[in-house]
């Protein structure tokens, strides 16, 4: 113990010191180990200094300044890039390492402080190429999506298991509560930890309801139907040279079976390289100079001082305007430089040999502003006399996959629009309606907050431009750069092996991407520009805010007579703040009118964000439908059954409507709808409630969906496409589809994607990736098999038409004894390789409806005294076409729900009303849902076939996100009997609603 006298050095000065401190034996104990000041002066460390670090069991020397964080030393000096930087402020956990076995944050630790400690990174968790039991459990349980948070998450969980070998559920959540996963993979992480600790997985329920026929449909037909509904073979005109429809999933060997992702090992070991991990020889680092003012004219930019700093290789003053484009540019006399329209807009940029130098150089760029009055709020911008964001009419193209708005709409002041849809006479229907319900709904600005911020490495070479981008669409980045730099597409290569989340914000090169390319061109060297967390919140997209006035009119029997929607929203300097098409299309109504306006404010531009507009629109519509049911005194589910039909008063035959009808009943049983209490009926301050939310999403077909399949003489198979894997498991899904057709296992396929040198694939967004690309994969497989079977048929002496690939061999369908195992079959190829490039075949007809549907039920608990809401349970029913990989679909649906709850309860970008600066551009006061806030989630998937393509695959990213906030809001109403019509539903908004104050 510390108060052993013999251990204490003695000395007058020390005794004198102790005498003055808080007395007592306890205090003496604390100071007992203190010693005399040494006679020698302290060693002052200054500037770059060699430093010995004990990393993963070896001593490594790095030469760094005292200011170097451990994260930077590991990543930049030791190239241990498994340690990620997500926020660089200690709030996200992506940089978690072990210091002497304890989980700690490398971004918030100076490298110079850890010389005496053992540092373990993800690369050292299980040395020798083996996987730690936890890493294996992460792979097996699909405890990852984009994978960017995964190394940090694994390190936190590994530290837990080292201390607590058999943790209970609450302890697991607590241990993960410092690691944010924006994809929302927490349930699988919890399962992985339980499995790794030799316990039963928590058992997050996933129920897949299949349709029975396991045979191929009769020739000239395709299966059509839904699990729990009717199923039939319907006639289809299928071109002779195309791959034929599969049987339903029970008749398939690989597709429809849960398959751990093929790149899982790379993600759990930190070996997966993201854009921000890349270090090319001679690579420079870029920083941007941004305006602190929300509205200003740039009078002067002087890069002279920055250029004089040693190590600075290029500077660039921005010429291209961000945001929308003025129809008549002469309406604005901006002078030499683009007008500043939001705080955080890029003015200039620098490239230097290190990140620190680039930061210093950026601060040396002198900018003189003439500051103008700014408009920062939706309502403020709508007022007469508000400062104008744009002096005249503007247009703005949407980024691929969403955002943007119709061209050439009317514009008055800061109001642009309306984008209008109208059917029937709404005014007359409203005037004559037996009953009406209406409400005003508000939703907030949400930022995408992917764990990997936007980033690019641009390498302008004499013969071509090579770009590594954290993007959702390699081809869309290429196309934007081709246009901006007037380069042929053939001379641009865009690559993305792994990316840390996008959610709609990472389609194009972006303004920052163009800046990086320009710096590379000037410096004649590769340039890496990775935005910091602040820039990510401010400059590269968000889900716009909305203010919706919605009215429903009904006849006495509950038939809808009219829907009238007026929506205003602000995407800052961008367009596209609409609320989607829920009000216009979900429930067929004789008279419908929707008028949607963009309101410009001096704030960063919006972008496509997971089901653009739809969660906002559904938040309003689903609440009002519940209000209508209450007024009609009918059950809200019965009312929806009645309204969710092909035409007013008719029946439901369209697949999405059939699905939702089934799903409402499944969910009602599971949530206990029949026991639902009256709204606000529970006693006591803490009340629970249940509610329903509705999903709809369009089936989007991207015909830029091609791929190449190559089969080599040695039996190896590869698939190539520019499509990339955003974290949804595209890589694995493609291997599964190809493996199914070649009779192989998915791991026998090498999938090379995310490179524009390969056939064009769709951007990952709009839930359209698999809708587009899987039919092309099957077509390429079909074509390559024809070539292979010709060779094998000759060798086996059977008609090539009778051959099939199944169970790892090529065999005669009639005489299975005549066969070759796959490798021997490939040896029959005359040349070294067979290849086929296939474009996506056209759909086999028009889709029977606009999309596909799902339903969610939420159970919440509301503390009516503090206003705190907890979501206890979400049950989701979803159809998503033919299921390819249920394991990955499950993860994505969990993520959609978790995203939805996070938006409903926590997230809110806060702008300073005066200056327009974002106040919470971080991951602690910008609140993203964490491990302890994950409710119980149950998923029911219904196989649905529409017989439109050879796979009938759909996407699931958006539909799972559409209904969650609406379901939570309806559940809150059921709990407290008061409507909360504003997001996020924070203690502040809930208490205001309870006090009848309306909005805060």
């Amino acid at each position, binding site marked *: 113990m510390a108060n052993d006298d013999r251990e204490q050095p003695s000395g007058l000065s020390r005794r004198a010191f102790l005498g003055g401190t808080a007395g007592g034996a*306890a205090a003496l104990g604390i100071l007992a180990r203190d010693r005399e000041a040494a006679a020698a002066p*302290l060693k002052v460390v200054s500037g770059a200094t060699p430093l010995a670090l004990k990393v993963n069991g070896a001593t490594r020397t790095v030469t760094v300044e005292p200011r170097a964080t451990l994260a930077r030393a590991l990543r930049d000096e030791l190239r241990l890039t498994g340690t990620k930087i997500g926020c660089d402020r200690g709030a996200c956990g992506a940089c978690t390492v072990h210091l002497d076995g304890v989980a700690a944050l490398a971004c*918030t630790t100076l490298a110079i402080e850890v010389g005496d400690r053992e540092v373990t990174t993800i690369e050292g968790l299980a040395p020798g190429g083996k996987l730690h039991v936890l890493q294996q459990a992460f792979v097996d349980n699909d405890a990852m999506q984009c994978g960017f948070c995964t190394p940090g998450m694994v390190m936190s969980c590994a530290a837990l298991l080292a201390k607590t070998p058999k943790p209970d559920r609450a302890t697991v959540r607590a241990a993960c509560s410092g690691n944010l996963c924006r994809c929302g993979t927490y349930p699988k992480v919890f399962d992985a930890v339980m499995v790794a600790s030799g316990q039963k997985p928590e058992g997050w329920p996933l129920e897949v309801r299949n349709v029975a026929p396991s045979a191929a449909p009769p020739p000239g037909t395709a299966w059509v139907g839904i699990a729990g509904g009717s199923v039939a073979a319907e006639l289809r005109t299928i071109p002779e040279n195309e791959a034929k429809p599969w049987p339903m999933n029970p008749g398939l060997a690989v597709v429809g079976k849960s398959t751990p992702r093929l790149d899982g090992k790379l993600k759990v070991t930190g070996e997966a390289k993201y854009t921000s991990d890349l270090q090319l020889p001679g690579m420079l680092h870029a920083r941007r100079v941004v305006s602190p003012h929300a509205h200003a004219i740039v009078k002067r930019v002087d890069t002279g001082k920055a250029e004089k700093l040693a190590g600075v290789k290029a500077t660039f003053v921005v010429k291209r305007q961000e945001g929308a484009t003025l129809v008549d540019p002469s309406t604005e006399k901006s002078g030499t430089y683009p007008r500043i329209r939001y705080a955080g807009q890029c003015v200039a940029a620098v490239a230097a040999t290190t990140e620190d130098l680039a930061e210093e150089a950026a601060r040396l760029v002198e900018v003189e502003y003439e500051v103008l009055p700014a408009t920062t709020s939706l309502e403020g911008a709508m007022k007469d006399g508000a400062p104008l964001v744009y002096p005249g009419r503007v247009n703005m193209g949407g980024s691929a996959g969403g955002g943007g708005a119709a061209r050439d709409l009317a514009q008055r002041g800061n109001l642009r629009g309306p984008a209008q849809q109208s059917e029937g006479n709404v005014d007359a229907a409203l005037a004559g309606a037996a009953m009406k319900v209406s409400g005003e709904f508000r939703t907030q600005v949400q930022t995408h907050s992917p764990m990997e911020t936007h980033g690019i490495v641009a390498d302008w070479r004499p013969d071509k431009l090579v770009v590594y981008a954290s993007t959702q669409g390699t081809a869309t980045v290429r196309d934007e750069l081709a246009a901006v730099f007037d380069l042929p597409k053939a001379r641009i290569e865009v690559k993305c092996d792994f990316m840390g989340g996008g959610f709609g914000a990472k389609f194009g090169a972006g303004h920052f991407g163009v800046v990086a390319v320009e710096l590379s061109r000037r410096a004649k060297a590769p340039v890496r520009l990775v935005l910091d967390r602040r820039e990510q919140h401010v400059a590269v997209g968000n889900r716009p805010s909305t203010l919706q006035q919605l009215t429903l009119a009904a006849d006495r029997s509950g038939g809808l007579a009219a829907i009238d929607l007026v929506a205003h929203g602000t995407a800052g300097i961008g367009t596209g703040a609409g609320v989607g098409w829920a009000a216009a299309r979900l429930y067929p109504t004789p008279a419908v009118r929707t008028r949607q306006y963009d309101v410009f404010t001096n704030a960063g531009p919006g972008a496509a964000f997971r089901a653009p507009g739809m969660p906002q629109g559904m938040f309003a519509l689903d609440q009002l439908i519940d209000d209508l049911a209450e007024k009609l005194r009918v059950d809200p589910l019965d009312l929806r059954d009645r309204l969710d039909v092909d035409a007013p008063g008719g029946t439901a035959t369209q697949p999405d409507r059939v699905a939702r009808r089934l799903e409402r009943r499944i969910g009602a049983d599971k949530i206990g709808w029949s026991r639902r209490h009256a709204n606000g009926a529970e006693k006591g301050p803490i009340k629970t409630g249940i509610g329903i939310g509705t999903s709809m999403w369009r089936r989007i077909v991207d015909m830029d969906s091609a791929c190449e399949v190559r089969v080599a003489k040695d039996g190896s198979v590869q698939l190539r496409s520019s499509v990339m894997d955003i974290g949804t498991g595209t890589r694995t899904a493609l291997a599964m589809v190809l493996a199914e057709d070649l009779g192989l296992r998915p791991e026998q396929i090498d999938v090379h994607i995310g490179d524009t040198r390969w056939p064009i694939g769709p951007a990952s967004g709009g839930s359209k990736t698999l809708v587009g690309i899987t039919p092309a994969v099957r077509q390429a497989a079909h074509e390559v098999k024809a070539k292979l079977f010709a060779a094998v048929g000759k060798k086996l002496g059977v008609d090539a038409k009778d051959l099939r690939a199944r169970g790892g061999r090529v065999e005669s369908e009639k005489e299975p004894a005549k066969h070759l195992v796959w490798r021997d079959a490939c040896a029959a190829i005359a040349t070294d390789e067979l290849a086929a490039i296939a474009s996506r075949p056209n759909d086999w007809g028009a889709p029977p409806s606009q999309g596909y549907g799902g339903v969610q039920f939420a159970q919440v608990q509301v503390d009516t005294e503090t*206003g*705190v809401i907890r979501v206890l349970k979400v049950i989701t029913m979803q159809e998503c076409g033919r299921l390819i990989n249920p394991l990955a679909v499950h993860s994505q649906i969990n993520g959609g729900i978790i995203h939805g709850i996070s938006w409903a309860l926590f997230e809110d970008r806060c702008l300073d009303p005066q200056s327009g600066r974002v106040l919470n551009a971080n991951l602690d006061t910008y609140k993203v849902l964490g491990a302890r806030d994950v409710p119980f989630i149950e998923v029911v998937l219904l196989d649905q076939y529409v017989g439109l393509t050879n796979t009938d695959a759909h996407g699931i990213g958006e539909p799972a996100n559409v209904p969650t906030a609406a379901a939570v809001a309806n559940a809150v109403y059921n709990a407290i009997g008061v409507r909360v019509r504003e997001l996020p539903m924070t203690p502040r908004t809930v208490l205001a609603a309870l006090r009848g104050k309306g909005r805060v």
Partner: protein
Amino acid sequence: MKSFEWVQPESVAEATAALAHPGAMALAGGVDLLDRLKERVDAPSRLVSLRRLPLAEIVEADGETAIGARVTLAQIAADPKLARSHRILADAASHAATPQVRAMATLGGNLAQRPRCWYFRSEAFSCKKNGGATCFAHAGDNQLHAIFGNATCAATHPSTLATALVALGARVAIAGKASRTVDLHGFFLAPEKDLAREVDLAPGELITHVVVPKLPATVKTAYTKQVAKQSFDWPIVDVAVALRMDGGTCKEAKVVLGAVAPTPRRATEAERVLTGAAVDVITAGRAAKAAVTGATPLAHNDHKVAILEVVVARTILAAIGKAV
């Protein structure tokens, strides 16, 4: 962040001497400091690493407990003796931040951390604390800000440990040219006293430890951190209560309010209501009402007043074993 020099003293005396160097700042866990350096809110020319100082133990002797300044929040949260003797301190520590931060952040650093006000934390706003003339929260987005004592500066004190420690009657020991011990509550400086500092530490001074007196068995305590999000959230309010009871009657009360004022706030009116009273739902409610009397909420944070009242009442009841 800007470049700086770094020294690592081996003794308290060396550390205090090093901290007297112009432009020097102390580096303990680094959680708060690195944040400020990266945001360029602070730009010290020299960091004094406290890592090799011996102040990392919790010692119980002679009826009091001394906690070294370098003891981490995780140590406090996990210490079995503290869990028995000063449970609310362990509660506050275990609810702070994230597991990783708790493993790094130290008691001294937690008490000396600077406000999390989003105006103060931004280089773009030259607020009063950063040498300017304006409190931007007053006319800005002040939903997270103070509801008491906010006329000069509306930042709240960010330490939740402080809330519990003040209720426990802690004293803080400071080493320096003249070493001294001060009552923890008085250690925190209101902005009217000093805008540039939140704690009574002069250049060349260092927190060495915090002393908490032993609580008699008759003292009942409770601590509540009210958050909106369960995984890592700053408190809307946090409240610590210590009641010396004689049967059902309160003989002496401490009610401390956190996250509502620039310093941890003693709710003296509430304490007066409780003292001498039988503690039940009604007195707890009266005390809670008294605790929010005189609040001066800003444009966007009157919800904090309502929530504070509820949490005070609940925490009083929790202290006497009547949890809601």
